[in-house]
């Protein structure tokens, strides 16, 4: 299980995470928003790796 956190200050709203993992991420006011704080979806990790500003923080739970 992963714990998902988004640093909204860093997020530039490029939507890469939503494209890679729509189950967990959505756009809210032009910034990424985690629909679920805790998930077992592997794509959440991929999204974090793809984030250009490293605004997504994933930790194992």
């Amino acid at each position: 299980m992963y714990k998902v956190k988004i640093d909204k200050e860093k997020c530039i709203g490029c939507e890469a995470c939503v494209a890679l993992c729509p189950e967990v991420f959505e756009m809210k006011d032009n910034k990424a928003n985690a629909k679920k704080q805790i998930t077992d979806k592997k794509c959440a990790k991929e999204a974090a790796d793809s984030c250009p500003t490293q605004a997504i923080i994933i930790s194992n739970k």
Partner: protein
Amino acid sequence: MKKMKKENEMETHSDVKAKVDSQKWFYTDIVKDHFFNPKNFLSEKKANSYKADGVGLVGSPACGDMMKVWIKVNKEQDKIVAMKWSTFGCASAIASTSMLSMMVNENGGMKIDDALKIKPQDIVKRLGDLPTRKFHCSVLGDKALRAAINDYFRKSNQINRMIIEGSRLIDKETGVTDKDIEEAVLEGADTLEKIQQKLKVGVSNKVCIPEVEQLIRFYKEKYFG
């Protein structure tokens, strides 16, 4: 074994190497080809005389990039027959949008409904991969194409087909969203009259006018204090 080989390959062929953590980036030959010889690129000079049915402009000011897409549409077949683009973006943005334009233009064009289904993942697959950290660059061309299709829908009076993401529809007759109003205010339309000249919002659908006025006030406050 296969994985080891790939790592060895990256060892010798890495295209970008970070000084700090010696992280290596690898671009496929397809990416390089599209970067050095972009397909369907529209130069600034030709853009003025290019007769497009839809134009889409997106960009992230934080990234400093911008992407513009032009499409020509065959109305009877509901098909995009030509897609052109231009960008101030990075190598990956250039390569992925070049590939996207090739995907849309090949076999005589693509049905609009199919073009709307293209995902950044499909582009990355056709490129043979992109460095993970550069994946977001392929989102840009995709977004600009959607914006161009929306623009075509608006111009050809197919408001009900417009897909509006991350913005709110204000006038259902003209398809004007809060984002359109924000852009118009930024371009200097600071009164209802000027906004209406530009966007025709609320000209026949008068119900939305109070909301439009409220948005003009809000964005004026936001950007010009």
